[in-house]
């Protein structure tokens, strides 16, 4: 069977496009099949953190994988900026986890200490109110302090995706939208994918369709143990620069607008926004930054995280149908660089990175 493409990547979000770009720039003929303009997409609902700290408490390799990606990010960013001619707004000033009381400051510090004990690269610093105020003058009087970690940063997730589109195209990749894959049939020497009335024959297939993987993975002998976990985000008008560090629930973008967030709800596939959570996020932003009271919210959105039971990734090749892969994670921005540079060689036949030994779906076996 002659294949149209060496690889077909299913899903044009942050995971799919980072992998597709990684393949295309290594000279592999690659097709991305993506859904419609109005499809549910986690890539459009990402907060934009390139975040390492506090990850890996269940399995330290997750912290290491995130750290590796964070170290690759500057070079990755440069490639995307060169290909697209635009700035991604990427910065790595370190991240701040604000604590509104002594208990939460102590518990954040304890959590990071446990991680640091397992890997000394995972450094952090505890800041009291005075020290925090030196770095972020806008913090209000009720803030107890913060934990600072040097590995954390942020970027525009939307421009990251746009940069990936441009870089993928420049590297010779082919992208098709309105081509939602509904069927994958393994055949001799490859896979046949069907999207509506179109069919494509690929040597190998990489499933990066987020929640859509639940339906596609079993077709190629894989499992995609993910559920949607909604997060709601508020976006404000542009404000002159006042916040130089990203935090877990407030960050200021390169354009000046603020992203406010941090919520988690199990509401199946509903990506709407609700009055209660909006009020909760607003209160949560005003508490540490009282000056935000009269800043205007220009829009709110809900997004469905791709959540595995332990919130850590799954990377797996099918045993029944070698050449079919699945890649699942909720941190598509943070891990984009590692996906492009470290995961792709494995997809192309190199040995699986030892850091990823843990991230099989079988760890969820009942």
């Amino acid at each position: 069977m002659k294949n149209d493409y060496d690889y077909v990547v299913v899903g044009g979000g942050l995971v799919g496009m980072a992998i597709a770009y990684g393949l295309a720039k290594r000279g592999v003929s690659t097709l991305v099949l993506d859904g419609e303009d109005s499809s549910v997409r986690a890539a459009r609902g990402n907060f934009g953190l390139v975040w390492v700290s506090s990850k890996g408490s269940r399995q330290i390799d997750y912290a290491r994988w995130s750290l590796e990606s964070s170290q690759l990010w500057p070079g990755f960013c440069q490639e995307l900026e060169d290909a697209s001619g635009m700035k991604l707004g990427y910065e790595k000033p370190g991240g701040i986890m604000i604590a509104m009381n002594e208990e939460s400051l102590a518990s954040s510090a304890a959590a990071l200490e446990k991680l640091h004990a397992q890997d000394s690269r995972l450094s952090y610093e505890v800041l009291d109110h005075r020290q925090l105020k030196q770095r972020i003058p806008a913090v209000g009087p009720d803030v107890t302090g913060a934990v600072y970690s040097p590995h954390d940063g942020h970027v525009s997730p939307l421009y990251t995706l746009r940069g990936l589109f441009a870089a993928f195209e420049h590297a010779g990749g082919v992208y098709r939208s309105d081509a939602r894959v509904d069927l994958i049939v393994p055949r001799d020497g490859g896979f046949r994918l069907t999207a509506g009335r179109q069919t494509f024959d690929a040597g190998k297939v990489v499933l990066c369709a987020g929640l859509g993987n639940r339906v596609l993975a079993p077709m190629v002998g894989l499992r995609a143990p993910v559920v949607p976990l909604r997060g709601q985000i508020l976006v404000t008008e542009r404000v002159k620069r006042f916040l130089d560090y990203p935090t877990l629930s407030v960050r200021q973008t390169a354009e000046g607008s603020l992203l406010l967030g941090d919520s988690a709800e199990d509401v199946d596939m509903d990506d709407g926004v609700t009055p209660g959570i909006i009020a909760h996020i607003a209160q949560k932003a005003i508490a540490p930054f009282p000056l935000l009271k009269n800043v205007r919210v220009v829009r709110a959105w809900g997004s469905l995280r791709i959540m595995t039971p332990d919130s850590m990734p799954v990377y797996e090749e099918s045993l029944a149908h070698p050449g079919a892969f699945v890649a699942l994670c909720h941190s598509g921005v943070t891990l984009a660089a590692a996906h492009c540079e470290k995961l792709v060689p494995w997809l192309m036949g190199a040995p699986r990175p030892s850091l990823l030994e843990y991230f099989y779906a079988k760890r969820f076996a009942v």
Partner: protein
Amino acid sequence: MPNVSLFSALAAAPAAQVSILINDRSFSVPNYMTVAAALLSVGVTQLRETPVSNAPRAPFCMMGACFECLVEIDSVPNQQACMTLVQPGMTIRSMIGARSLK
């Protein structure tokens, strides 16, 4: 700063006058005016500079849909001038680029 106004007053029913400050200059305008109408009537042609490129902008739709008439009123930035009636003693300032966090 204000030039010749693009608009002139038509014969009006009697109305109280209200004293307002526009970029620190004092003006007296009828109380039935919105801030946008008052600005246009005293000859303000350019209301603001955009946060994206500092391009000059002025009211466009006068009904709250276009968000071009954003001004700072009594220290609160980015209010729609066309949706706000003048009040005695109101202080109005142009928005030059993005607002700051006060």
